[in-house]
């Protein structure tokens, strides 16, 4: 799927409503970006331009903030985002292998999304569940005490779930 094609189909009018809420409020750049991303799943150039219009700020300024933080995305992401924790505790217990298993199962590396927009891999610094390392999160669900094989089972389950949903 072409990224622009995705953007064109989107109805950007919801942005106006979201931005109105934050307009003129100090320190609202991050919350407003979060709110728009929450709605659309990512932040495109067109969205930033529209936001800039409503908020009366330069889209470049928004882009500058967006690119600084790890949790903003400029392209659509998978339905299931697999966050592999690469914190210290997970590292010493072999979380590097879990990322490899994702690659083996879905063919995606860090930051990449499968072609069918089913899965995105994201290596993150620390989920803060070190007691059950190695840990991953698939969307909001945390899975801990993993082994490469256990994680493979989990990924297979999600892949099946995604296939059924499509």
């Amino acid at each position, binding site marked *: 799927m072409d990224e622009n094609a995705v953007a064109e189909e989107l109805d950007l009018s919801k942005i106006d409503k979201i931005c109105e809420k934050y307009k003129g409020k*100090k*320190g*609202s*750049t*991050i*919350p407003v*970006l*979060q709110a728009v991303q929450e709605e659309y799943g990512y932040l495109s150039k067109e969205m930033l331009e529209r936001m800039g219009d409503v908020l009366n700020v330069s889209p470049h300024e928004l882009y*500058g*903030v967006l690119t*600084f*933080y*790890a*949790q*903003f995305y400029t392209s659509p992401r998978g339905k299931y985002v697999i966050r592999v924790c*690469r*914190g*210290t*505790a*997970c*590292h*010493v*217990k*072999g979380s590097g*292998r879990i990322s*490899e298993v994702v690659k083996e199962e879905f063919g995606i590396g860090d930051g990449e999304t499968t072609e069918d927009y089913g899965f995105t891999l994201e290596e*993150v*610094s*620390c*989920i*803060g*569940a*070190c*007691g*059950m*390392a190695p*840990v991953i999160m698939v969307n*909001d*669900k*945390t*899975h*801990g*005490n993993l082994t*490469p*094989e256990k994680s493979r089972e989990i990924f297979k389950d999600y892949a099946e779930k995604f296939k059924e949903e499509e």
Partner: protein
Amino acid sequence: MSAVKSDIIEVHICTGTAGVASGAYEVMDAFNEVFKSKNVPAIVKERECKVKQTGCRGLCERDVLVDIYLPGEEAATYEHVTPDMVQTIVDEHIGEGEPVKKWAAKKSYYDFYRLQKRYVLKDCGVVDPEDIDDYIQLGGYEAITKVIKEMSPEDVIEEVKKANLRGRGGGGFPSGLKWTFCRKSPGDHKYLVCNADEGDPGAFMDRSIIEGNPHDVIEGMLIAAYAIGCNEGYIYCRAEYPLAIARVKKALKVAEERGYLGDNILGTDFNFKLHLKEGAGAFVCGEETALLASIEGERGMPRPRPPFPAVKGLWQKPTNVNNVETFANLPMIILNGADWYTTIGTEKSKGTKIFALSGKVKSTGLVEVPMGITVKELIYDVGGGIPKKRKFKAVQMGGPSGGCLPEDLLDTPIDYDSLTAAGAMMGSGGVVVMDETNCMVNIAKFFLTFTQRESCGKCIPCRVGTKTMLDILERISDGKGREGDIELLESLAEDIKISSLCGLGQTAPNPVLTTIRYFRDEYEAHIYDQKCPARECPELIEFVVIDEKCKKCGICYKVCPVDAISWEKGKVAYIDKEKCVKCRECIVNCPFNAID
């Protein structure tokens, strides 16, 4: 843990992040279901049964943990509870008063808590984090009431100074003194900020405090706000902590409804408005000036100090920033007094510190111990030592800002100054234990990869320096190390430490420096012998089975994901180099270190 005073039967279920991940809500549903369906109150003499969610009590690895409180009895704890165990527990334990022995917590569970002094965490695992009344019943909001009604702001600062509370974010700066600066700063509008941007890999105490008892942090902030003269505040929380954010949001709303936040708090003229601000994923935002920039909606870049935030902080107004754990210490200091508080800890480091104990240790989780306990006690007595009969190699303390300590420094007492002297630091309280299968060059590389990626890029020493160091480390672990690399790393490290703008760069070289200091031979083995003694750097391992060491158990054969290992019962295993993908599964799982 003590018995609940009331006459009702209570079932406490751990619903911290780890608890929820292990299925705490399913277990909770199962209890509710059983109580509803079987009319249990009738069985247990008309007493009410209450199922309660609590925050993290530390030993996450044993989740789901469930406490059963029968009136007049000590609590009984069950480990690894799943929904299908619930019926039996209710029938035998609650119904007939016979605890189910096979599932009850074992000795190691109680050992984990024996040396701990749980003051900050006393309500975590006991109180329902989403129920303000539960907190109030256990003495919540008594401290702020006492402060407002009986003490002047100066009294409060004096008490905190006397208690010698030092910042728990890692720096260890005296909190009372910090408050004085902000209080004395001219200006009517002052801000108070709670730094809940816990980004250190391997630390999660702030998360657990907030998830376990958000009101405790709010109350601590109220005390600080009153003392300093702040009327507006922010809790800046990592967006990676969705459960913590949800619980803070709820707590803020209820506290405001009850008159603990907002205007005319408790009927006085003290006003304090508190907001929640979600981070967006940038480690550098833990640095206070970067954090303030982030609240203002900017890129989270630090700026040089002075001026300090106490003079010019958020939107140029005087601002005081403290860490979650620091705030959580305040209510008990006020309620019990500084004299009591100073009886805990060492001469210069008072009170307790919470550590996140993880890595190669039997009991992993959150631990609150008095300052002064030794690293050894923490790992062996509280944590139960190293699993799989492997040998201890090093302990990494203080996250990316800290350092690795070797075995002969295990007797170092845990306090701000002793740790710094040993080359590590308290930092945020992450304690990651490593055994003989962990390579120290690899661990240095791991931390540098992290800090290099998280560098905001504003100052050159940090942006370019950490990248250069990382390049060298990568070369070494790839078997392309050169003579002089170690010395080059050392000299780069010193320069970066001195010349970086903020704490991130100033401390980024620490893991490299301490691993060189204590494990220089391991670096040398990589560079000169092309060997990785821990067998962790794939480029330097041969992946062959050592015949003499192989006990023919077949474990390697079973764990190999690509069928590169052939083995028959009673025969030495063999690794096919063509098929091997160097994943290290065989090495990690071999109990006899028989693969080189």
